[in-house]
């Protein structure tokens, strides 16, 4: 009975914290996040127009080459921003011990796995009519597959350990070590014999100017989408954490 009274008193005294802490709730989203979402949709539509209609048809490969624009954009998003943010936020977490960095790293890893999945599936779809095989154990393909496994394992590790500093510490170390594969993926086509073409080269990779523009617009559009999805995902994680904290505070668990 006394416990019930304590619970009721805690309830009565704590509410403002809950009401005020709703900042991350979907309905209270700020305007700039909505603008970012709308901007990314418009940019993707424009990129689709450039990739599918405006860009010239490649002379040797034909229309299948149009897959290139979003395949490369997805690969760039995975290797650059997504796993880069995981590594940077992991270092920041280990340095500052602020769980917000851990939440950003986790959200970015999720997006990185999604973009790597797109890269790993669209690549073979493009390779089949051109190379005559969906998959070869080429260094670029193999190191990218390893990267995908590393970050799937990262997400599995997070789901297996209870939320808190222990999970954040383990994830941060895993994220930093896992990121080491990113430069290996990037350099694989220079270090080893490969049939995978070089896209980013000092001479521009041999792309026609129209194709290069379509590629850069696709990369820009996917980067905007990544930024939007990251913000939304991190806000969800923030809200879930606040909810947990309030529930814990109110003995609702």
């Amino acid at each position, binding site marked *: 009975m006394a416990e019930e009274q304590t619970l*009721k008193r805690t309830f009565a005294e704590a509410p403002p914290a809950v009401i005020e802490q709703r900042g991350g709730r979907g309905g209270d989203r700020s305007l700039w996040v909505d603008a970012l979402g709308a901007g990314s949709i418009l940019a993707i539509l424009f990129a689709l127009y450039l990739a599918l209609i405006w860009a010239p048809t490649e002379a040797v490969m034909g229309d299948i080459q149009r897959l290139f624009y979003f395949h490369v954009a997805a690969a760039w998003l995975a290797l650059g921003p997504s796993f880069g943010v995981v590594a940077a936020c992991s270092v920041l977490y280990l340095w500052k011990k602020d769980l917000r960095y851990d939440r950003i790293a986790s959200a970015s890893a999720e997006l990185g796995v999604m973009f790597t999945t797109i890269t790993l599936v669209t690549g073979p779809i493009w390779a089949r009519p051109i190379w005559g095989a969906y998959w070869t154990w080429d260094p670029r393909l193999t190191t990218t597959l390893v990267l995908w496994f590393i970050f799937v394992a990262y997400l599995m590790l997070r789901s297996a350990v209870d939320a808190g500093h222990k999970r954040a510490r383990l994830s941060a170390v895993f994220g930093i070590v896992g990121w080491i594969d990113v430069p290996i993926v990037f350099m694989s086509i220079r270090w080893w014999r490969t049939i995978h073409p070089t896209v980013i080269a000092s001479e521009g990779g041999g792309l026609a100017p129209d194709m290069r523009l379509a590629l850069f617009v696709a990369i820009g559009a996917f980067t905007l989408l990544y930024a939007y999805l990251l913000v939304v995902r991190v806000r969800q994680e923030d809200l879930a954490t606040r*909810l947990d904290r309030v*529930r814990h505070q109110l003995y609702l668990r």
Partner: protein
Amino acid sequence: MSNLGFLAVGYGFIWLVLGSYVFSLARRQGGLNRQVDRLERELELTREAAPGR
């Protein structure tokens, strides 16, 4: 399958993955909103049960 067929499968897969992810985010957001509403209702009930606190 023709070149265009492979192209359609490739683009179809990209938008399927992105659409599924956005859908999962929307579902998760819906779940969080419901949890916030439930917590607020419970807090309101407790406030009414313990007025003046």
